[in-house]
């Protein structure tokens, strides 16, 4: 009787199951500890390359990425246009990144730019147009092939060093993990892990704006009355309906480019969920306002939003205080450091919110280099960064932050970390000649004095 009552009361609280349904216990967050040689945090432009390099050098690698795919600004950000791997007619950045680019170009039936023809003041002519989604897939495949353990949808919450190892806690969807790694490479672009680890960072009072990449369609640009459009745009700004800075005061440019790399979002910051949420909302809100405005213009009534990236891409947040800070003078004079591990080549490219960007080109023959010390936070051990958070002053950073340079840095950091792990030391104590050799064995190009 009591048993029957018990069963009956159980029946009263248990949901009625349909045939085939199985009642599952409530989901519990999986907690685990993972041991690895090298932890790369951030699977963006630099992080992908760092992870592949370290994996191909024979180390165990974990790659943590808070998004859904690899590639960062090159893919998720939508700036699928890496530059510049060539300088003054010669290739200066090669290796793993060039391998990925070559394959993405070939698999998409595209053609590389002609690097034999000088780009003059149009440096973008030597940047390579890529199919972003394809690049993301290839990057992922090469990581897997290199034995890299990829962990999407995770972000670090703590980074503590115990003796020679780092203990980095991450949270993700249904997971809480402690990753124990001998070497850490922070490729977040925001020096996020460096900050968690307690290293000093720099940040400008006003950072460069971010950009939401999108594509408009549905109008014939050649048929538009551009004078009328400019006047209407100025009126809308004067009335406070639109913000001039959001499209650099250039409605014609917006219509001509159809939204390609023209928006400016003040203070865009991808460091935390909160700041990145704000940047994304701001980017999309601005886009919607301008789309509605454009559709009121003669000839633009049928304008549509054909495509839009899922995030506002970010140019500048934090930089580490490194063992060396690359200065603007270092960059524009092409100093070849004793511990140079990669070349870099791009005009000084500072985006000013109201006026856009006026690139300052390098003097002919100058090819800047990146020292290993600029990838190492001051007083750190077994820790590197790669990407836009490199230790540099603001002007140098405006050129160093671009994709090809980040890729070169990524390979250098991966090589340095792999060797540091093998030697049971910290990256700056690895003989530079060995780092050079490893990079070159994997196709990279190392600056020589």
């Amino acid at each position, binding site marked *: 009787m009591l048993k029957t009552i018990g069963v009956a009361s159980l029946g009263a609280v248990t949901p009625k199951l349909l045939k085939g349904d199985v009642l599952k216990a409530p989901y519990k967050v999986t907690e685990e500890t*993972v*041991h690895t040689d090298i932890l790369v945090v951030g699977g963006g432009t630099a992080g992908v390359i760092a992870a592949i390099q370290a*994996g*191909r*050098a*024979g180390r*165990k690698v974990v790659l943590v990425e808070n998004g859904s795919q690899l590639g960062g600004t090159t893919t998720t950000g939508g700036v699928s246009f890496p530059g510049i791997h*060539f300088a003054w*007619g*010669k*290739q200066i950045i*090669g*290796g*793993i990144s*060039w*391998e990925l680019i*070559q394959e993405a170009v*070939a698999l998409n039936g595209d053609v*590389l*730019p*002609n*690097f*034999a*023809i000088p*780009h*003059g003041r*149009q440096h973008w*002519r030597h940047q390579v147009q890529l199919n972003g989604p394809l690049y993301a897939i290839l990057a992922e495949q090469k990581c897997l*092939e*290199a*034995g890299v353990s990829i962990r999407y949808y995770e972000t670090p919450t703590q980074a503590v060093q115990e003796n020679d190892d780092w203990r980095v806690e991450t949270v993700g969807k249904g997971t809480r993990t402690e990753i124990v790694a001998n070497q850490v490479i922070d490729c977040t672009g925001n020096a996020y892990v460096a900050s968690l680890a307690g290293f000093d960072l720099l940040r400008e009072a006003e950072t460069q704006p971010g950009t939401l990449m999108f594509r408009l369609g549905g109008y014939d*640009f*050649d*048929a*538009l*009355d*551009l*004078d009328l459009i400019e006047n209407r745009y100025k009126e809308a700004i004067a009335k406070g309906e639109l913000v001039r800075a959001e499209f650099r005061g250039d409605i*014609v440019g917006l219509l*001509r480019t159809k939204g390609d790399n023209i928006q400016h979002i003040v203070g865009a910051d991808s460091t935390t969920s909160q700041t990145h949420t704000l940047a994304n909302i701001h980017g999309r809100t601005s886009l919607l306002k301008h789309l509605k405005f454009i559709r009121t213009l003669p000839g633009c009534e049928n304008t549509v939003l054909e495509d839009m990236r899922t995030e506002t891409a970010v140019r500048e947040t934090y930089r580490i205080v490194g063992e060396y800070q690359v200065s603007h003078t270092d960059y524009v004079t092409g100093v070849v450091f004793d511990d140079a591990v990669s070349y870099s080549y791009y005009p000084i490219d500072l985006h000013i919110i109201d006026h856009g960007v006026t690139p300052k080109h390098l003097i002919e023959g100058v090819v800047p280099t990146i020292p290993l010390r600029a990838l190492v936070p001051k007083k750190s051990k077994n820790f590197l960064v790669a990407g836009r958070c490199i230790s540099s002053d603001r002007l140098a950073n405006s050129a160093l932050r671009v994709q090809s340079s980040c890729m070169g840095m990524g390979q250098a950091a991966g090589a340095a970390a792999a060797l540091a792990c093998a030697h049971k030391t910290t990256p700056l104590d690895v003989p530079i000649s060995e780092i050079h050799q*490893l990079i070159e*064995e*994997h*196709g*990279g*190009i190392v600056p020589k004095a």
Partner: protein
Amino acid sequence: MAHLKTPPVNSVILAILSLVLFVSFRDNGRIRYFQSATLVEDADTVVGFPSMTDGIPDTLFQVRSASGLPLSYYKKIYTGVCFDNECRMLDIVLYWNITGRYLGFELPEDEFLSKFDHEPFSESEYERLHDLLADLLSPLGMYAYNELAPKPSIDEEEVDGITSATSKEILEYVVKGAAFTTYTLRTLVYGPIKDEVESHTRQALSEELILKILQSPDVSDKIWALGEVRERIPLSPKLRDQIFEYINNDSYSLAERAIDAIDGDELASDTLQMLLLQKFYETDYGLKKLILDKLKEAPQLDDKVKANLAENLKKWEGALLSNVLDLYIAQKVFDIETCRLVSELLQNENRYISQKAFNFLQSSGLNDEGIDKELKTYQMASHSALP
């Protein structure tokens, strides 16, 4: 808006064309500016091809040498340049190199180009126009015609037309005071006529012509020619040697195009494969990969190439080793000697390399007791290493 007149060809034009084509200002009363052509030979004949411009029937003229090789192309242009037709009509002859490259322009006798208020161009303005038209990468190509359109302006420094002003950013890419002229000419030079020129040259392609174009001092000519070889021109020893000269580290773009120019079927030749293998050892990483990809296209991999790559397997790291193994898989190189050499990589302390070797041997389908034993040992060691 464009209106083209097509006066008959006359011998005076032919005589002028037979001169060496260099930059000059006035020649026999005509204003003319030219770059170096790919082929500098005496003109013998001129052939007209039907062409259309803005829907109006027209003629594109091809100048030929005595042996029938195309030397250059030209089109006579007579068109308005301003949307309000307030400017003088543009009366000019445009020239193209056989590879579609801009070659130069010439004005009819006593004709001149003018700016706003019909003020004639100065010599320096003609030179600037010539330089601007020669700039393949000029951003002017990114602007639409209506971006040059008149705007009301009280700033006299910006005035560019009768009542118009040119955008400051465009001023850098046009002759000041002649934005419409510059734009119109650039559109003509790099528009559909360029494609027609290239198409007609393709019709005339031969080994002889390709070899001559490859001697051009202009690198864009060489790259154009290399892009036309594959599947069109059989590789004679002479052409092969010329193409292989470009496979070096001096210019990635030339080397890339040269490698691409080799048709897969041509690699039935053992000699060609060995030449390519030699280049493999001489070139940088980025080109090595392209060479290995090219060898995949060979009907069959030469035994000497197979053996040479296998002997050097232990020297390579990363993607290079992976690419060689991919080549073997593509070419079904699964002989016992090669597999034994690959199996030695199972002992490599770099797990990426040992795993690559394992994957290759697994896909080989080879039944060899020694190799099978090594594979089992590797598998057991890998499993015991798992956390």
